[in-house]
């Protein structure tokens, strides 16, 4: 079977999973069909991208998969009616951090493809699975049959304006905001100082 054929089958499978998930959500929790579909689609994008990130041997691809996963998360944010955060997600991660990663990958290009991906993969895998199981159990125990009160669902959601006001509000978050800016400055300076090439400043010394 040719490669394009296989890709097409995978596409069909994913489509089936998405639509099936939508139907399932609709029937089980009476989620609107398209909402459920979108949720399942974004969840699949996120988790699949994540799995690809941790499994891909080629780091550049891993970076691309990371972006895919983060894009799915941005979609989840949209579903959670936090569009500002979604946009920030896309802007910061895909626009900045991903570029940063690609740069790092390319600067360390000679080691982009290590022979063995993992060290002690089985213990780690067991630990991660155990963690996931534990978290799932806790979530199920605590939030399994919890439903939000209707008025909260219908309340007017605080939008970007409120966030902006809160970020510069004296009673609000102005202090963390300033501290975050300070942290960013420090991180920038630190990154420059750490990553600056040694013979760069030697060159400067030479004039």
């Amino acid at each position: 079977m040719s490669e394009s054929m296989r890709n097409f089958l995978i596409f069909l499978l994913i489509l089936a999973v998405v639509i099936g998930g939508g139907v399932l959500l609709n029937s089980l929790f009476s989620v609107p069909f398209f909402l459920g579909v979108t949720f399942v689609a974004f969840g699949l994008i996120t988790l699949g991208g994540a799995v690809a990130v941790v499994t891909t041997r080629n780091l550049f691809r891993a970076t691309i998969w990371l972006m895919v996963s983060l894009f799915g998360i941005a979609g989840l944010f949209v579903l959670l009616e936090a569009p500002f955060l979604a946009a920030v997600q896309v802007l910061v991660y895909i626009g900045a951090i991903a570029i940063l990663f690609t740069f790092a990958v390319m600067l360390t290009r000679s080691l982009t493809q290590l022979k063995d991906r993992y060290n002690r993969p089985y213990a780690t895998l067991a630990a991660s699975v155990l963690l996931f199981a534990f978290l799932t159990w806790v979530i199920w125990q605590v939030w399994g049959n919890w439903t939000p009160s209707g008025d909260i669902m219908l309340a007017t959601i605080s939008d970007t304006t409120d966030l902006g006001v809160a970020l510069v509000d004296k009673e609000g978050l102005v202090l963390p905001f300033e501290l975050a800016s300070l942290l960013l400055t420090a991180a920038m300076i630190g990154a420059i100082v750490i990553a600056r090439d040694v013979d760069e400043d030697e060159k400067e010394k030479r004039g």
Partner: protein
Amino acid sequence: MIDTIVNFFAGVFAGDKSLMLWSIPLWPLLSFAAISGLTLILWLVRQITGTPENMIPASDHRYADHNHPGDYGDMPVPYQPYWFRITAMVIGVVSILITLYFAWTLVFGALDEFGAGTFGLADSAAAHGEEVAEDEHAETEAGHGEEAGHAAEPCAPCIYGNEVTWLALGNADDSANGFVEGEDSSHEIGVFLDPLNATLLFMVPLAILCIFLYSVGYMWHDARQAKFFALISLFSAGMLTLVVADNLMMLFVGWEVMGLCSYSLIGFWYEKKSAYNAAIKAFTVTRVADVVMLLGIVYLWSLAGTLNFRDILYNPEVLQAIGSTPAIFLGGWGFSAAGLIGTFLVIGTIGKSAQFPLHVWLPDAMEGPTPVSAMIHAAAMVSAGIYAIIRMYPLFVGMSNPHASTPTFSEPLMLMAIVGAFTALFAATMGVAQRDVKAVLAYSTISQLGFMMAALGVGAYVAATFHLITHAFFKALLFMASGSVIHAMEHGDHHVHEHGHGHDVPDEHGAHGHAEHFDPQDMFNMGGLMNKIPVTFWTFLAGGLSLAGFPLLTAGFWSKDEILAESWYGFNSHGSFLHLFVFVMLAIAAFLTAFYTMRQISLTFLGKPRTEQAEHATLGGQYSIVSIFMQLPLLILTPFALFAGFVGVPADFEILWIPIGRLFASIGGFFHHFVIYALPFMENGGYEVFHVDAPPYNPVPVGTSIIVGLLGLGIGYLMYGRKPLEAGQPDPLIKILGEPIYTTLQKRYYMDDLYNLILVRPSQAIARFVIAVLDKGIIDSILHGIAYVFTVTGDFIKVMNAWLIDGVGDGIPKGIFAFGGFMRRTQNGRIQAYLLIVLAAVLIIGIIFAISAGAVLAS
């Protein structure tokens, strides 16, 4: 603190008399402090700036041996620049000038205030004293309110005084020292001024000033003016403290300060073995006496609860009580407490004033620089002893009365009379045979002090005071003159040395110590100096005549005559044989005094120079600093030495029926009354005995003194002056007295050898024994034993240390090391391993929490 000082000096210069009195001993003290501080600063600066301490010969005199033979001249001492030494001299002289100014201000102020009363009789004077007391108290500030208390007591001419509490000893119970009611026993130091120490305040600063001026010239070429002036300033401070003190403790402090200074000044040229031997001798001998004196002071304190003169002497109850209490010691022999205390104090004075058994240190004290000799012999030291006795006189007298129709003598009086009279004659005999110019003066000092002691013993304390003053003047004069003579001789000696043929002069008088060396102090090397140093000669002549008691003209005559008159009066009117004994002894002593004085003058100045040194003797140029400063004080002192006696001329004195006393009616007898007012005079308790008038005129003592004085001078002139000795001619006295006696006299009756034999040698032997047996044998063995024990213990501990402590101390690190080596495997620096461990821990903890929470939810 600062403003206290400022107020003090402001008060002093504003004329507050009591503060002036406080400041009198302060100025020399300040000069001492200033000079010492400057020296210290100089030293520090040199240390800091790292200036190498260049040593120079202790005498940077132009000639090698200045004032002191031989081994001293090239003795290196740290160099002090000239400006520094001159600054030190200036500080000293200026301080004494200020002292003199204040002292005389006080004295003449006292004369003005006491004036009327002093010539009147006791009662009127008492009344006057009262009122003066009042306005004095009115004008002194509230600071010394005790004035009122003292003024309320019957108090002869009133006293400037000021007291500050020195150490608060709390309130002593009255049973122990119940003699002074209302006196708490907190010890107060203070100053006061009364006629007696007014007279000393007239004499002492003047003499000290002359000595300082003289020292400037005398020490000019010495390298250690700073040290010298600092010490001599401290000396003066001690003397002045003693004079202005109003209690026995402060007096004793000044006393001891003088002892210390005399020690370090006699040994000023410590490079000279004889000098530091003399210093040690003086110190030791006076210590012996001072300890006894301190015993007396302590006993007095324990009895009276106070040492303030006025609280004791102007307080009849106290005096009677002390006089009537049997002594705790020797009480069996009828000693009263007063008697015992007095005896102790007299012994202290015997040490200080060099009386018979303890006189041996004084002749050696001339090893120090001549100004120091003058200080000791005239101004300060020996006078202090006599002054202390006069000050405490009522206590000495106790309940006895040497002036009564049947005179009674308390033990200290008897002791003083006998010892004083004997010492006077004894020292005079020794002085006859001396050939060292200063030694003669030293023995004359001893004998004159003997005069004073004897006079005190027979109750003639006014005469004693009088003689103290006059003697201070002419003896200071004589010492400084002899010092300049020696200086001149040394100039001559150096001149001879310069011209190379110094040593071919045969020094056949080798008996006097180092034969090979020329002794500039030997009178037999002098002669004919009259033309070389005329000023010195004339002043020396004046002082000598005054010492010899040349009739009618000199101060010495009047004072000696008064002593003789007092003693003769006692024998004549009351038939007391102690008076007679004193009279006879002192008459012979006076004769000998006149004799050896004439002998000294003749040998030194008359005739022809017997050596080249004397030939070239000079004070180094007529207007050189040395000559000026060494002759100015002589000129200052001469008039006092001559005419100071006129203040004591009795009003009824006449000779060959010529009433000479009339001439001095204006001032004659002034001294007598003035000094008498220092002493208490209560009608009750028998203290009016101190206010006897001067004895009526009697030709016998007058004739005696005139005759002995003139006779001594005449015989001396016949033997030495008429045909002066040639060079190398032996002392004619040898033919007269015979070799052995002469030698005995010259050897001071072998008393030093005796002391060596019975005191020094045994003590040295004991010391050696102690060193050998006690120290080396016992103490050292004990120490060695202890050390051995500790060594053994140390070894044991060392073993324990190596075994136990090191075992533990090393075991812990080893264990830690092993554990660390084990734990290091986990610390492999691989972050992901760490994170895995963290994750596992989180899982475990989370599961535990979840289970517990589930249990909670379930319940």
